[in-house]
Structure formats: C-alpha cells, structure tokens
C-alpha cells in the first residue's frame, strides 16, 4: 500500500514557544471562543497545511489521536462531583470526537466525509490503511491530521501506552495531504496490514539501506529514536524527513508486535 504526500505541516510544543490560541486569533483570524486546547491545536495544524496547498471541498478529512481529548473529561467530571453542577454545554460538545473534525472541516471548507479514528496503538499506521482503502474507491485526496496534546493525566497515558514514567510527553500536531497520485508529490509512504515479529524486522533491516527510526517503545535494534513521546510520533518523523528530503524506515512496537513503514522523499 502506497500513499503520496502532497504537503505537510507540523507543530511540536517544545520547538515553538507560541500561544496556539493567540496564533489562531492574530495570524488566522479564527474565532477561538468555546473551543479548548485540543481543538485549537487541531485548527493550527490544519491552517498551516492550508498555507502550503490547495484544499478542495470534496477532499476527505481524517483525524487520528492516541488518546483524544482527555483534559475535557477531567474537567466535566469535576463539574459534576465538586461543583454539583450539570455538564456545561460547550464542554460536552468539545468532548465529542467529531467536534474537532467539525471545526477543522469548517475552516478548510471540506464537505466530504470526516472521520475521527483512535486505535489501540499504531493509530497512525491504522489510519493510513483506512485512507488507502477509501481512496481506492473515492479517488479524491485526503487531509490527515495526527493530533496529541500533553494532558493533565500524562501518568495515565504512559501506563496505557507502555511508556517509561520518566519519559517526556509532548504536544504535537502533524498534518499531511495524501493522494494515490504521485504527480507533484513530496514523498511516498509505503506500509501494509502486517504485524512483524522481531526476527522478521531483523530480516527487513538486513536488506534496508535507508536511515532507520524507531518509536520510543521500541527497545530492540539500537536504532535512532527521539527522547520525547506522543502516540502519533510517526507522523512527525515523516514530516521532518520530508522537510529534510530524507528517506527512512520507521518501526513502531507495542504488545510484542512491530509495524513498519517506509518513506521515500522525491
């Protein structure tokens, strides 16, 4: 399975000392009221992507996240428990998975389908497979946003994701415009539905001539990896490789299974 990347945008919280909310207001003239940090981050990434490419109304929108908007859940339960109040209207709305995709679709003028997909790890890989299958039928292009924000409950995130307690958790938003068409593409991403064993990955590595990156969960192979964690890290690594004109092989690991994807910059 192969998808072509037509444009990218990235935000990583430790690399940019900006207020996302202020950027949305000043740079993009977005009404930031009634939206929370998760939605603001999703909008920033989307609008940065729009700066780099044309987005059509019949492009589909996919958003994916490791854990979704956890902060809003904590906030809502506090209302009920500590303040004895019913849930506030916009907190309830902002909690729903497709609220972020609604605001993003509205800003980008997208009228085709929008999907918010969360997987049990490998969420970015799984969304690529879904997009590939959908594009085979629909022949349009897709905007994919991968969205994770550091949360009040990072300790829960670490336990769920199998991450060391001292691991730094970052916020990051990475968008890609994806297509089946190679024309004017910046890079290709190749992937499959297989899960790999340790031995199978070792075989792949023997034949590989590309730079290799691993996710922070991946202990084997002694490959390059980042010091930070967010569940959709693969999307950031890909965007950075494309920006640098690099090709690479990326390995993720969870629950004794590996996933592999290959990026070829053009």
């Amino acid at each position, binding site marked *: 399975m192969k998808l072509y990347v037509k444009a990218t945008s990235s935000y990583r919280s430790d690399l940019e000392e900006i207020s996302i909310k202020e950027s949305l207001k000043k740079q993009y003239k977005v009404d930031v009221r009634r939206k929370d940090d998760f939605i603001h981050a999703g909008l920033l990434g989307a609008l940065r992507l729009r700066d780099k490419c044309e987005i059509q109304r019949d492009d589909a929108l996919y958003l994916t996240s490791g854990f*979704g908007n956890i902060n809003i859940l904590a906030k809502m339960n506090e209302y009920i428990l500590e303040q004895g109040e019913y849930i506030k209207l916009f907190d309830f709305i902002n909690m729903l998975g497709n609220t972020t*995709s609604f605001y993003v679709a509205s800003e980008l003028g997208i009228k085709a389908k929008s999907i918010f997909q969360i997987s049990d790890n490998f969420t970015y890989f799984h969304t690529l497979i*879904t997009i590939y299958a959908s594009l085979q039928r629909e022949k349009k292009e897709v905007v994919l946003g991968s969205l994770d924000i550091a949360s009040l409950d990072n300790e829960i995130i670490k336990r769920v994701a199998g991450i060391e307690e001292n691991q730094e958790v970052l916020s990051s938003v990475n968008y890609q415009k994806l297509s089946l068409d190679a024309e004017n593409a910046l890079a290709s991403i190749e992937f499959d539905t297989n899960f790999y064993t340790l031995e199978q990955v070792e075989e792949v590595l023997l034949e590989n001539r590309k730079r290799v990156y691993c996710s922070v969960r991946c202990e084997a192979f002694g490959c390059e990896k980042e010091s930070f964690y967010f569940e959709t890290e693969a999307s950031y690594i890909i965007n950075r490789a494309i920006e640098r004109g690099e090709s690479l092989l990326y390995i993720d690991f969870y629950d004794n299974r590996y996933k592999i994807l290959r990026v070829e910059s053009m």
Partner: protein
Amino acid sequence: MKAFINEYASLSCAGDTEALMEAIYSKKSAISIDTSFMSDTPVGLGKMEYEDFFESLKSVVKRVLENSNLENFHKTLLIVGSSVGGMAESETHYFKDKNYKSIDPSRHAISVISDTLQDAFNFYDTRAISTACTSSANAFLLAKRLIAVGAYENVLVVGADALCYTTVCGFYALSVLSSKACTPFQEGREGMNVAEAIAAVLVQNEQQSDSIELCGVGASSDAYHMTNPDPEAGGAMSSMQNALDDAGLSAKEIDYVNAHGTGTQANDKVEGFGVETLFDNVYVSSTKAITGHTLGAAGALEAIISCEVIKQGLIPPQTNCKDLENSAINIPFESVKKDVNYVLSNSFAFGGNNTSVIFGGLK
C-alpha cells in the same frame, strides 16, 4: 470485492435482536422514565438490564462467533464505533474516589471497548472510531473499503455505548431530551431519548446462503453548525446520494429508509426534507421510538434492524407518531408486508457528520 453481512447479535433496552424486532413490529417502546441521573428532571432513557456492561459486550460478540463460520477471531479485524467508550466506568471511579488514581488505565480510554474485546477474543487487529452518533455507521464504511481492497477477509463491526452522566447530562445541557418516549416525525415533538446498546455485525468477503450484502456506504460533512444540521439538508442528501452511488443504485430502488429520526426538532425536520427531496414516496420510519438513541451504537444496531427488515419482508411501522409534521414523506403507521430488496439506514451526528449505509437482500 463485495462485502456480506453473515452474522449478527444485539442487546438493547428492547432485549436481544428477536425481542427488538418483536417490539418494533408491535410498536412497544422500551423507553423508561428515569430520575437516576438527574433527580429533579425525569427523562426518557433506553436502559438495558445487565450487571456488567463489558460482560454483556463479550457475550454479544461471543454469540456472533458461535453462530459464524469462524473458529476464532484471530484473522478478523475488529472495528468498534463508540461515542463515549469507557466513560461510565471512569465516572464510577471518579465519583467514588474524587480523583483518577484508581482508574484502570486500560479501561479509561475511548478505545476501552476494543481493548476489552481484544483481550477476550484475540482479534488480528483493532480500530476504534469516535464520531459521536455516526461512529458505528462509519465502522461499516471502513469495513466495506478494507474488504474491497483485500486488506481483510473478515471484519467484525461492533457498536457499543453505555449510559453515563456525561451523555445524559450533556444532551440535557443541549435542551434536546424528551421527558417521555420520543416521538420521531411527530408535529410538536419534544426531543430524544439517550439510550445504550451493544450490536455486533460480522462482515465478510464470502457470500453465504443467508447473507445480506453491504451494498454501499456514503458519508459527508455539513460543516454548517456544531449541533444543528444544514437546514437545506445538503449534508444529509449528499450522504444518501453517495451511498446510492457507491451501491450503483438509483433512489427508486430503495424500498425502505431506516431514518436517523432521533425525535429532535432539528434532525427530523431536515432528514424528512432530505428524504422527501431525494426519494419518491419511499417508506421511511425511525426505530428510535422503540430503542431510544443509542449514540455510537446506533449505526450497528440499525444495520441489524435493516437486515431483519429485508429477511422478514416487513416494513417497520412508526411508533409514537399520530400527527406527522411533514406529510410529504411516506411514514407507515402499521407494518407493511412487501418484498424488500434494499434498505438505506441513516446515521447523522453533531458537527454535520453524516453516514448512510445500504443493505441488500440476495436473490
């Protein structure tokens, strides 16, 4: 490659699939009036009977496995559609301990339903989709596309949502709850009933003797308003038309539309207008008068209802409706016996997230 629905099972406030269809055809709503979530505000809710939601979930999925041609789910993709996942359990812990420390992280996330089923059945792979009330309808979209490209041979679509404070109080905050059983398409209707359900549907690339074909799926975004649909029904019609195009059918070939029909003012008005515009006198009714709105589970539960309508050749009557708001749509007040070849089922969600699924009988 075509996709076929070969097995299914469900549990809702109306009971299992057999009891549910009996309730639909005999127009017996399973909605109860409840004050356990908001003591001073009685609301109609669709409450299931269970000791542990997750045990019921496993039991429904086990039933599908036992009745299927599979020995296990080890080569099956699981796609779960849920709007709130493990919220009910997280709420219980939080209310008891006043903090999150005792929450089992594996039962906290939105993907808790797929986690639970993965632990119990060891699926090849899992996905969780959360697009509110279109969640499990969108799971069919993914299932059909993934089977079409040969990525998977077997996909189990599960729609599941349990009642919790977040959804009951959240919809109350939106002022769309009904204090009685909902009355879809009725003039002067009061609102919707939040409900819970579990529905599991096995979609495969192989046809069996009693298969129902998953003929087409269409989706669209209104991108109009966060909670209100596009009043011109642009998104709703686009979703239905996309499903027809995907199935290679014309509107006149559809025998029955299982409406989203929540009983809210905005939804039923717009959906009725969309059906009126796109179809020529097709039968349409909402089974949410029986089950309530099962949120993320609705797409899968109503897929099962659609399959049963085709198998039984009996169009469901509209329960709890005496005076139609829109007399231009063909709502049957009693069951209609007829050959049913194709059923279109609508699921519409907040943010104008629309999905329509078409099911077909095999001759």
